[in-house]
C-alpha cells in the first residue's frame, strides 16, 4: 500500500467526550458545522478560522444534515425530534460587525419553536429539493423502519411507509455497540438522474453536466447517469424525474424509495441489494465528464459495492445493471466522496480509494455479477466476489489517524484538495491532501519527470540507508560498551570480593596480583634504583584498554624539611590488552642513588576510566544523576580497585657485591665524580664515626657491635635456629648438607627479595657451617656487611640461634637495614605463630639480660641529663655523644627471637 501524508492543520478543538456516530462535520461554503454528540452544534468559519456561533439544543444532537439549498440545517435531537435552524440567521446582518476584535461565538439557543417534526425515534433524515421540497426521516419503531415524508416548507407530514426490520436487529447491534459509542444509524442519500437537473429544470441539455460537488460542499445528493438510473430504479422514476432516496440500513439492506410516488400499489420501499454489513456510505462517483458514473455503497467492514451498467449477456444483449463487490480493510468509520474515489477513515488511518468504474472500462459481463431475472444465487457469488475484489484498487493511506467524521473535499483552483475532519478527541482538522492522491494511488507523471522522480527516490533510499548504517554502528558501539562494562563489572566484583572478604588471600591465590622487585640499573654512569612491578592476570578476564595500572610510591618516613607534605608519587600504566594468564611488567624509577627515603610503600591499584567508554557527555549525565554514580564510587568517573600494598625496604635495595669486602676494587675504574666525592665524604664520616665509636667500646658485652672494623656501626638480631629451620623449610641440623648451612639460608632468604640475588648465588658465597658473610652496597653507596652466624644462647639450656649482624659505616644504613631485617623476621613470625614451650627458659634469660641492659642504659641517660639539670656547662657535644651511644646500644638487641 502506498502511503502518502496529508498535511494536517488543526483548526479548533472541541470537547468530545464520547463521540459515537453522532459526530458529524458539515462543510458548507465558509462554514463548517460540527456536532460532537453533545447538545451543541458549533459553526466554524474557515476564512477567519474561528468559531462564529454555537447552536445550543435542548437535548443531545445525534444527527444533522444540511438542506439542499444550504439555507438551513436539520438536527435530530435524541428526545425531541427534528429541529430546523435557518443558517442565515446565524450570521449577523451587517457584513462588518463593529466588535471585530474577536467577538466570542454567538450562542444561539434553539427552542422548541424550531421543532420541525416531533418524532423521538428519528435515526436519520435527508432533505430533498430545498424549501419547496421534502424531508424524509427514517425511524425505528415497532420492529420496522418507518420512512416518513414531510413537506420541507411547513413540516407537514405527508405520508409514511414501513419496512420490517430483519433479524439482524438494530437493537442487538446497538446494545453491543453502545458501549463502543457506535450506534448504527441508517444512511440516506438522494440520487438524481443526471439528465434531470434537480433544481434548474431549464438546463435540460443532453450533455452530462459537471456535478456540482466541487461547488456545493456537504450535500449528499448525487447524480447518476440516466441509463443506470433507469436500470436500477425503473422507467417510471426516470419518466417523472423522481429523485430516489437511497437508504442503507444497519442490517445491510440498500433500499430505494422514489420520492415522487406514482400512485402505485405494492411496496414503495424496494430493497436493491443486501450488503450483509452495516452500510456506512451511499453515493456516486461524481467523476469527471468522461466515463460512466456508478453508484457506490460502502459497508462498515469494508465491503464496497459498485453498481454500473454493462453489456447484457449473449442471449439478450442490451444493457444491464451489474454489481461489483470489493473489499477494503475495515472498519469504515466515515466516508466522503471525492471526484474519482472515496476517502474513508478506519479510525486508525485515513485512506483514499480510487474507484475502478471511473476510468476503466466497464467490466466484461462474465466478470461481474449481472443481476437480472432474479438470477442472484448464493453459490456463484463468492467466486464472483473474489474475482471482483481484485479489480478494486488498494487504498492509499493518507496517514491521518483517529478521524471520525469527514466533510469535503473541496478542490480549489490550484488543484489542492482539502478535507475537513473531526478527530476522535474532538479536534477539527483541515487535511490538505498531497497532490496525486486525488487521481488515485499512482501519481501520473509526465515522462520527462520520471527520471527526476527516480533519482529523488534513489536519493531518498540512500539517505535511509545511511541512517540505517549509522544506527547500526551506534548499536554496535553500545553493545561494545556493554560488553566492556560487563568485563569491568566482573573485574570489580572479583577484586572487591577479595577486599571485602576480610582476610587477605595469600598473594599467590589472588586472581590479579602484583609483586615488585627493586633493581639497580646503571645508566649514563649513574646508578638508579628501579622498581619493577609485575602484574599477573590469572583471572578469566581480559584487562583491556581503559584499564590503568597505577602504582603509588609513598615513603614511610620522609625528611622533615619536606614540611609534612605527602611526597608520594603515582605512576600509571595503561593496559593495551592483558589476556588471562598474561603478565605485565612495568618499571619505574624509584630513586636515584643517594636518595634515602626508604622504606617506601608501593600501592598498586587498577583504575578504570568510564569517560573513555561512555564519552564525556554521557558520563557527566550519569554523574549528574548522582546517586548510582556515587554508590559505585565513581567520583570523577574513575573506578579504582586496590590490588596490593607492598613495601620496598633497605634490604630490597641492596646490591650484593660478593662475599668478600669490595675494598676499593682496583679493577673498577674510578667512577663518576659524584661517586668519588661521595666516597671522600664517606671516608671522612667514617673516620669521625670510628673515633666516636671507639670511645664507648669497652662498655658493650661480647654480643655488642664492634666498631673496630674501620669505624663501622653494627646492629644484630638473634633468631632461633629452630624457628628459622621451621619457617624457611631448612633441613634439621643432623642432616646438614655441605652446601649451605642455616646461616647461608638465612642470608639467602633475606636477600632473596633484593636485587642481585642471582649474582650472589652464582658466585657461591663460601659461608661455612657456622657463619656466612655477604657484602653489599646499599643506598648511598655504602658497603654493608651482612653476617649470619650460629650462636648459642643461654646458660642452663643451651639454645642454638642465628645472629644476623649488619655492619656499615653509615648509621642510617644500619638503622634501615636493621629495620628491614626486623620487619622480615616479624613477618616470618606472623606466619609461624606457634611458639615452642621449650624456649621459655631462654626467653626468660634473654629478658633478664635485656632488663639489665635497659637499666644500664637508663642510668646512662640519667647521667647524661644530670649536668643539664644541675646547670653545669656540659658541652652539647658531650651530651650528643652520650645519647648517641645510648641509641647505639638500644640497637644492639639482645633478644633472641624464637
Amino acid at each position, binding site marked *: 500500500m502506498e502511503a502518502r501524508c496529508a498535511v494536517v492543520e488543526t483548526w479548533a478543538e472541541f470537547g468530545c467526550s464520547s463521540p459515537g456516530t453522532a459526530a458529524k462535520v458539515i462543510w458548507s461554503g465558509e462554514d463548517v458545522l460540527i456536532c460532537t454528540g453533545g447538545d451543541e452544534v458549533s459553526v466554524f468559519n474557515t476564512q477567519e478560522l474561528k468559531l462564529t456561533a454555537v447552536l445550543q439544543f435542548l437535548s443531545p444532537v445525534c444527527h444533522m444534515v444540511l438542506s439542499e439549498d444550504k439555507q438551513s440545517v436539520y438536527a435530530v435531537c435524541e428526545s425531541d425530534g427534528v429541529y430546523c435552524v435557518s443558517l442565515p440567521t446565524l450570521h449577523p446582518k451587517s457584513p462588518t460587525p463593529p466588535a471585530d476584535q474577536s467577538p466570542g461565538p454567538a450562542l444561539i439557543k434553539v427552542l*422548541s*419553536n424550531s*421543532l420541525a417534526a*416531533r418524532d423521538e425515534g428519528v435515526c436519520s433524515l435527508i432533505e430533498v*429539493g430545498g424549501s*419547496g*421540497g*421534502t424531508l424524509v426521516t427514517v425511524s425505528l419503531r415497532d420492529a420496522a423502519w418507518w420512512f416518513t*415524508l414531510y*413537506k420541507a416548507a411547513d413540516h*407537514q407530514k*405527508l*405520508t409514511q411507509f414501513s419496512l420490517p426490520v430483519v433479524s439482524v436487529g438494530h437493537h442487538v447491534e446497538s446494545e453491543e455497540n453502545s458501549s463502543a459509542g457506535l450506534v448504527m444509524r441508517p444512511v440516506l442519500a438522494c440520487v438524481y438522474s443526471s439528465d434531470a437537473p434537480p433544481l434548474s429544470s431549464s438546463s435540460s441539455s443532453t450533455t452530462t453536466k459537471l456535478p456540482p460537488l466541487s461547488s456545493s460542499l456537504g450535500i449528499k445528493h448525487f447524480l447518476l447517469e*440516466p*441509463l443506470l438510473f*433507469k*436500470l*436500477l430504479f*425503473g*422507467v*417510471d422514476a*426516470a*419518466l*417523472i*424525474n423522481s429523485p430516489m432516496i437511497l437508504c442503507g440500513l444497519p442490517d445491510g439492506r440498500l433500499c430505494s424509495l422514489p420520492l*415522487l*410516488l*406514482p*400512485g*402505485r*400499489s*405494492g*411496496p414503495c420501499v*424496494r*430493497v*436493491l*441489494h443486501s450488503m450483509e454489513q452495516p452500510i456506512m456510505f451511499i453515493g456516486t462517483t461524481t467523476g469527471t465528464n468522461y466515463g460512466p458514473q456508478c453508484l457506490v455503497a460502502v459497508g462498515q467492514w469494508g465491503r464496497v459495492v459498485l*453498481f454500473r451498467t454493462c453489456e*447484457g449477456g449473449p*442471449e*439478450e*444483449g*442490451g*444493457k*444491464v*445493471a451489474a*454489481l461489483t463487490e470489493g473489499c477494503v480493510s475495515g472498519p469504515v468509520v466515515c466516508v466522503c466522496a471525492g471526484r474519482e474515489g472515496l476517502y474513508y477513515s478506519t479510525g486508525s488511518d485515513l485512506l483514499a480509494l480510487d474507484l475502478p468504474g471511473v476510468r476503466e472500462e466497464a467490466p466484461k459481463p462474465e466478470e461481474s455479477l449481472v*443481476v*437480472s*431475472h*432474479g*438470477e*442472484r444465487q448464493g453459490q456463484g457469488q463468492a467466486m464472483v466476489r473474489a474475482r471482483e475484489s481484485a479489480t478494486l484498487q488498494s487504498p492509499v493511506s493518507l496517514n491521518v489517524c483517529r478521524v471520525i467524521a469527514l466533510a469535503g473535499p473541496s478542490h480549489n483552483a490550484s488543484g489542492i484538495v482539502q478535507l475537513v475532519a473531526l478527530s476522535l478527541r474532538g479536534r477539527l482538522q483541515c487535511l490538505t491532501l498531497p497532490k496525486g492522491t486525488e487521481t488515485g494511488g499512482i501519481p501520473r507523471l509526465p515522462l520527462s519527470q520520471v527520471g527526476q522522480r527516480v533519482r529523488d527516490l534513489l536519493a531518498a533510499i540512500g539517505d535511509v540507508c545511511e541512517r540505517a548504517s549509522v544506527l547500526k554502528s551506534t548499536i554496535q558501539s553500545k553493545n561494545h560498551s556493554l560488553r566492556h562494562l560487563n568485563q569491568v563489572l566482573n573485574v570489580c566484583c572479583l577484586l572487591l570480593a577479595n577486599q571485602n572478604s576480610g582476610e587477605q588471600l595469600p598473594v599467590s591465590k589472588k586472581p590479579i596480583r602484583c609483586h615488585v622487585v627493586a633493581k639497580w640499573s646503571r645508566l649514563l654512569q649513574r646508578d638508579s634504583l628501579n622498581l619493577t612491578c609485575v602484574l599477573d592476570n590469572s583471572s578469566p578476564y581480559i584487562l583491556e584498554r581503559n584499564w590503568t595500572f597505577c602504582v603509588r610510591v609513598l615513603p614511610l618516613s620522609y625528611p622533615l624539611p619536606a614540611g609534612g607534605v605527602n611526597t608520594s608519587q603515582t605512576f600509571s600504566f595503561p593496559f593495551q590488552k592483558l589476556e588471562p594468564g598474561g603478565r605485565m611488567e612495568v618499571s619505574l624509577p624509584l630513586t636515584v642513588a643517594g636518595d634515602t627515603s626508604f622504606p617506601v610503600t608501593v600501592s598498586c591499584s587498577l583504575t578504570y576510566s568510564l569517560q573513555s567508554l561512555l564519552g564525556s557527555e554521557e558520563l557527566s549525565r550519569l554523574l549528574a544523576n548522582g546517586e548510582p554514580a556515587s554508590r559505585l564510587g565513581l567520583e570523577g568517573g574513575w573506578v579504582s580497585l586496590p590490588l596490593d600494598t607492598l613495601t620496598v625496604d633497605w634490604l630490597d635495595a641492596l646490591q650484593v657485591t660478593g662475599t668478600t669486602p669490595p675494598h676499593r676494587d682496583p679493577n673498577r675504574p674510578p667512577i663518576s665524580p659524584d661517586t668519588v666525592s661521595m666516597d671522600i665524604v664517606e671516608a671522612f664520616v667514617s673516620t669521625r664515626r670510628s673515633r666516636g665509636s671507639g670511645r664507648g667500646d669497652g662498655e658493650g658485652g661480647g654480643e655488642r657491635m664492634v666498631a673496630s672494623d674501620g669505624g663501622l656501626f653494627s646492629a644484630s638480631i638473634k633468631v632461633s635456629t629452630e624457628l628459622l629451620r621451621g619457617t624457611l623449610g631448612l633441613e634439621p641440623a643432623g642432616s646438614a648438607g655441605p652446601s649451605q648451612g642455616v646461616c647461608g639460608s638465612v642470608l639467602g632468604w633475606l636477600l632473596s627479595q633484593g636485587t642481585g640475588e642471582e649474582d650472589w648465588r652464582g658466585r657461591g658465597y663460601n659461608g661455612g657451617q657456622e657463619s656466612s658473610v655477604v657484602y653489599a652496597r646499599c643506598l648511598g653507596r655504602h658497603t654493608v656487611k651482612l653476617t649470619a652466624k650460629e650462636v648459642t644462647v643461654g646458660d642452663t639450656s643451651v639454645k642454638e640461634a642465628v645472629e644476623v649482624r649488619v655492619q656499615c659505616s653509615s648509621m642510617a644504613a644500619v638503622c634501615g637495614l636493621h629495620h628491614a631485617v626486623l620487619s622480615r623476621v616479624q613477618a616470618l613470625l606472623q606466619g609461624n605463630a606457634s611458639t615452642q614451650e621449650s624456649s621459655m627458659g631462654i626467653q626468660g634469660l634473654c629478658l633478664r639480660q635485656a632488663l639489665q641492659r635497659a637499666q644500664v642504659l637508663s642510668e646512662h641517660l640519667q647521667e647524661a641529663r644530670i649536668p643539664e639539670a644541675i646547670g653545669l656547662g656540659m658541652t652539647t657535644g658531650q651530651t650528643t655523644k652520650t645519647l648517641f651511644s645510648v641509641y647505639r646500644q638500644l640497637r644492639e638487641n639482645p633478644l633472641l627471637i624464637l
Partner: protein
Amino acid sequence: MSRVSAPCLLDRWTEENNAIVDKWKKHCDRGDAITREQGLTLLKWCYVESHKLLQKIQGVLAVPAHVQLELTVVYNCCLFSFSQTQLTEAEHLLTHSLERALGAVGCDRPPPNPPVFWCMVLKSLGSTPSLRSCALHLLCLSWALWLSTCRLGHIQELQEELQSLSEGLGAVEVAVERSAVRPAVLVHPRDLKDLLLICTVIAQGAELLCEGRCSEALTVLQRDPSPLAPRELLAQIHTLTGLCLSRTGRPHSAMQCYRKALETDVRCVCALHQSILVYRQLGNTQAEIQALRLLHSVLIMPPATQPAVAPPIICPASLLPGQSLSSLLSVPSPLSVLHSLAQKCVLHGSVSEGVEHYLDLLAALQSDHQLSQGFSEAPSLPRLPELYLEAGSSLLTAQRPTDCLALCDEVISMTLELLPERLLLEEPMEASVPGSPDKLGLGQDRLGVVLWSGAAYLLQAHCYSHLKDWKQAVTHYTRCINLLMKVSVKQKGCVKQELGVRTLQRLKGLALAGRGISFTHRDQKRESLRDLQLSLQAAPGCASAGLWLTEVLWRLGRRQEAAAFWEKSQSSSTAPSLEGVPLYLLDPQTGPSLDLTDLQRRVEEFINAQHS
C-alpha cells in the same frame, strides 16, 4: 405519625391532581389562544406531572382511605399515557394499581386473565360505592385499551359488565358528591363510555365484514347508535352498513346507506368511493363519471386546517387502529381517481375532457406536490409508460397527433437504451406480479420495455397514418414490428396466454394491420396483402384488418377470395373480447376510413351475382 399527616397529604395530592386536570381543561376551553405545538408540550408536561404524582402516591402503602384518590389519579394518568400512545405502560399501570387497591381492601391477588380479573375486581370493590365507581372508571379505561389494541375478544366476554356501566356510572355521581374535595377526572367516564360504545360497534362490524359474515355485521352495525356520537363515526357506521348491503347483493340499499353517510359527514370520501364502485357494478357510466369527478375534487381539496387546540385526550382514530377497518374504508389516491376518470371519459364519449384529465394527471406526476395529495394502497395507477401511452392514444383520438407524437417520443427515448437484443419468453413465465419490479434492475420489466416501446412506435405510426404520411407510417410500423420480432415466445402447452404475451400478439397484429393498410395507400398491394394476412394470423380479433383484407383482395381482383373471406368474417362476427387490453391497443378510431357500405355493397353484389 401517618395518622396525623395522612389527611393532610391526601388533600395535597388531591389538590395536585386537580391542578393538573384544571390546567389541561383550561387549555382545552381556551381553544385558539395557543398553538398546537404548545398544546402538545402542555400535554407532555401533564403526562409527566401526573406520573410523578402517581409515583408519590404509590410510594406509600395502600390504605383504604387512599384507594379512591389513587385510582382516580391512575385513571388520569392512564389517559395521559394513552394520549402519548404509551399503551403498554397504561395497561401495566392499571393492573398494578388495581392489585394494590385489592390488597388494600384485603382481597387476594386476582388471576391475570382480564375477564376473570375484572369480574373479581368488580366483585371485591363493588361493596363500597366510592370504590366501585373508581373501578368502573378504570374498566372504561381498560375497555379503551382493549379496543385500541384490537382485543375485541375481551370486550365480547365482558359484554354484560360493560353494558351495566351506564347504570354504574350514573350512581357514581351521587356517591362522589359527598366527599368534600373530590379528585377531578380528566374525561368524564360517561363521555368516554359513549365513545367507546360506538367505536366498539364499528370495530366489531368491520371485523365481521372482513371475515365475510356480512349479516352478522349488519346486525351489529344496526344497533341503535347514540345520536350524540361524532359525525365521522356515524358516517363510518353508515358506510360499513352500505358495504354489508352491497356485499349481500343489495346495491340500491347500499347506495342509500352511502348517501346517508355522506349526508352525515361530507368528508366521508369512502362512501363516495364505494358508491362509484356500485355505479360501475350497475353499469351507470354517467353517474360513475359524475361521482369520480366529485371524488377527485374532494380529494384534492386542501385538508381541513388542523384545529389549533391539541388533539383530544382520546380520539376515535386511536381507538380504531384495526387493519380490517382501514382497508374497508380506504380510498384510492387522487391520481388514481383522476386516471379512472380520464379513462372513463375517453372510453365513454367525452374524449376532450378525458384528454384534459390525462394531461392534468401527467402534470401532477411531474410536479413535486403530488405527495400532499395523500397516498393510499387502494386501486393504483398503471405503470407510467402505459399512462403516457394512454394519454397519447387519447390525444390521437382527440385529433392531436403532434402532441401524441411528442409523448410517444418521450417513451421511446426513455426505453431506447433498455431494449434487449433478444428476448426469450418461456410460458408460463415465473410467477411475477405485474407492477412489482424485482430486486435489482428491470428483469421483469424487459418485456414491458419492449411492449412500451413498440406501442409508442405503433401510436406514432397511427399518428402518421392519421396525417396521411404513409411513408413515415410504414417506417414506424416497421420499427414496431422489428422490435416485436425480437421477442420469441416458447410455448409450453399452455392454453391461456398471459397478459404480456397477449398484448404482444395484439400489438403485432395491429402493427401488421397498420402497415398493411399503409401499403394499400401506397398502392403496394402485395405487401399489403401479406401484412394483413399475417396480422390476422397474429391477432385474429382485429376487425379493420379483416375488412381491409377483403378490400385489398378485391382490388387485386381476387374477388372470389374476397367474397369468401367476407362471408367468413360476417358469419363469425363475435369479436374476441377486448377486456384487459390497454386503451392504446384498441382499434384506432382515427385511422384511414374505409367506405364500409361501399365495400359491403360491392361484395354482396358480387356474392349475389355468383349465387345467381
